[in-house]
């Protein structure tokens, strides 16, 4: 059988099973088994098994449950509420201050939590009612929470970077640090957009009330306490990676400790909180790792059949030059993003795309940042926009998915702009990691 035919049959089997509702992890595995038996001998499964064990006993993979645990504890620790209150009181004077404050709070929270869903749901519950109560425009409120919360993919510690690092074989620490400046760029663009749009159209955000404007300085200073723990946690986690004294896995453990202390300080630490966080961690980790196992199986067998070489030749033969190929890859991602989650896209395209990128002379760390920004875009675009679904799931009645999609349009264009800037100036992502020791 020719590799073209194998590719078509493999994709057809994969898509059929997926559409029939078989979970992605089993779809990848079952497709791999069918083609192993069909193309080779069943004993080729031993190679697959070796790959699965290798993945199961992977050092970097340990950081996944730990960062998830950290996020789950923080989510229930009351840190997000304090953070929002503090930012709100300090930005109270500004027109649109609440929306700007939400973006800033999202950035700080994203520097501790690496899961998009957790962040959007948390701020959707805290910030959205406050903004709607004060007469903010519905679109402005929905957009800033969804797009702001979505930045958790890009701002370290992001689970996306961990998986990318494992797939590409590049340092997860480098990826984390590389995401900082592009993340801040995106946040700046968002804040700038809010400032300009409320200035042009004041009806979008009413001026702060007398009460909100005249918060005594003493109270304002007391509110700053809410920023201490988030600042310490971020500093400890990212700082230790940056300075090189801890691996991302160890930094994640430190972050967990910080999260537990925060919860204890807010008197939120209880057996229920810890056990719920542990259960949630198990579910998310098992879901992710069995996807990794399935991906190991299907990528392993496709590579053995000559698929990786085939894809490489097909892409290299495109008459667009290196930058054209980078753009084609991103179009493929955005297309796949209509149906698949970030993890599926990364596990399936990463092993094919990353070697091509390297042979074209691009930096795989930079490509990781580009990947994350693409996923931020795919999270906001129909028909499968997880960020939008998370937001709609906590929005009050009367707000539907379409409202949220529309509200995010301006932020979507800004993300495209930021993506173009990050692509055009690789230094923006690569400068900070280049300063790292070791």
């Amino acid at each position, binding site marked *: 059988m020719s590799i073209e035919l194998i590719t078509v049959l493999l994709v057809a089997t994969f898509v059929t*099973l997926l559409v*029939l509702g078989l979970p992605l992890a089993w779809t990848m*595995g079952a497709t791999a088994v069918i083609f192993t038996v069909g193309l080779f001998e069943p004993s080729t499964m031993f190679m697959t098994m070796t790959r699965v064990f290798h993945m199961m006993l992977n050092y970097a993979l340990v950081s996944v449950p*730990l960062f998830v645990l950290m996020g789950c504890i923080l989510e229930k620790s009351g840190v997000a509420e304090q953070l929002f209150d503090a930012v709100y009181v300090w930005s109270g004077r500004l027109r649109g201050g609440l929306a700007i404050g939400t973006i800033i709070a999202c950035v700080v929270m994203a520097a501790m939590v690496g899961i998009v869903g957790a962040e959007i749901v948390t701020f959707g519950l805290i910030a959205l009612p406050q903004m709607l109560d004060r007469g903010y425009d519905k679109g402005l409120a929905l957009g800033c929470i969804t797009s702001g919360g979505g930045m958790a993919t890009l701002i370290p510690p992001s689970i996306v970077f961990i998986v990318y690092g494992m797939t590409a074989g590049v340092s997860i620490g480098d990826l984390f640090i590389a995401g900082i400046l592009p993340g801040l760029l995106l946040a700046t663009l968002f804040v700038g957009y809010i400032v300009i749009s409320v200035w042009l159209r004041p009806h979008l955000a009413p001026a702060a009330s007398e009460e909100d404007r005249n918060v005594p300085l003493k109270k304002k200073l007391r509110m700053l306490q809410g920023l201490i723990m988030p600042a310490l946690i971020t500093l400890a986690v990212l700082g230790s990676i940056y300075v090189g004294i801890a691996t991302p*896995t160890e930094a994640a453990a430190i972050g967990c400790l910080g999260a537990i202390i925060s919860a204890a300080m807010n008197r939120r630490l209880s057996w229920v909180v810890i056990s719920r966080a542990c259960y949630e961690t198990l579910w998310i980790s098992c879901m992710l790792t069995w996807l990794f196992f399935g991906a190991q199986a299907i990528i392993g067998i496709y590579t053995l059949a000559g698929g990786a070489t085939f894809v490489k030749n097909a892409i290299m033969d495109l008459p667009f030059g290196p930058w054209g190929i980078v753009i084609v890859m991103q179009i493929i991602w955005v297309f796949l993003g209509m149906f698949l989650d970030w993890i599926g896209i990364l596990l399936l395209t990463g092993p094919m795309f990353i070697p091509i990128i390297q042979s074209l002379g691009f930096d795989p760390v930079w490509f990781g940042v580009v990947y994350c920004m693409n996923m931020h875009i795919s999270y906001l675009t129909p028909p499968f926009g997880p960020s939008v679904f998370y937001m709609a799931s906590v929005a009050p009645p009367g707000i539907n998915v379409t409202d949220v999609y529309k509200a995010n349009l301006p932020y979507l264009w800004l993300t495209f702009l930021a993506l173009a800037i990050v692509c055009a100036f690789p230094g923006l992502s690569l400068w900070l990691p280049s300063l790292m020791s070791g």
Partner: protein
Amino acid sequence: MKSFLALIDTFNARVGQLTAFIVIPTLFCIFYEITSRYVFSKPTIWASELMIYFCAILYVLGAAWTLQVGRHVKIDMVYARLSLRGQRILDLITFPFFTLYLVMLLWVGLQFAMESIAIHETSGTPWDPPIYPMKSIFVIGCAMLLLQGAAKFIRDIYFVKNGRDL
């Protein structure tokens, strides 16, 4: 039959709930390692390796419970539009593929584990602990997943046939 299915559910959920707390000793391993490296300048040879085994247990023994609570991601663009009965019928159609994959993992995993036990295989690292418990646990995890899948399969057949839950 009903009580047998409930037994599978309870067993997998209990094992999962217990396994979930393995992240706590994992944390202790890391703190121990950090402390001994930076405070006592004596890095351990076992802590970093042990935490990998703890997490491997987490992924493998928690998978069946994750399946039970429906947390393995799927694409539901078509699936979600169907009636409950339609969804159950699709689950019946895809069940053989799930079984194919898991039986294959179980079969190959079993041979890996048996060989590993026979030669008392160790990990080959400086600490060099026996590795066969990890390979055996993988087989147990696959068996748990298959049982959970089979329980769902029987329930789906009953639902499609009788229009109500077993």
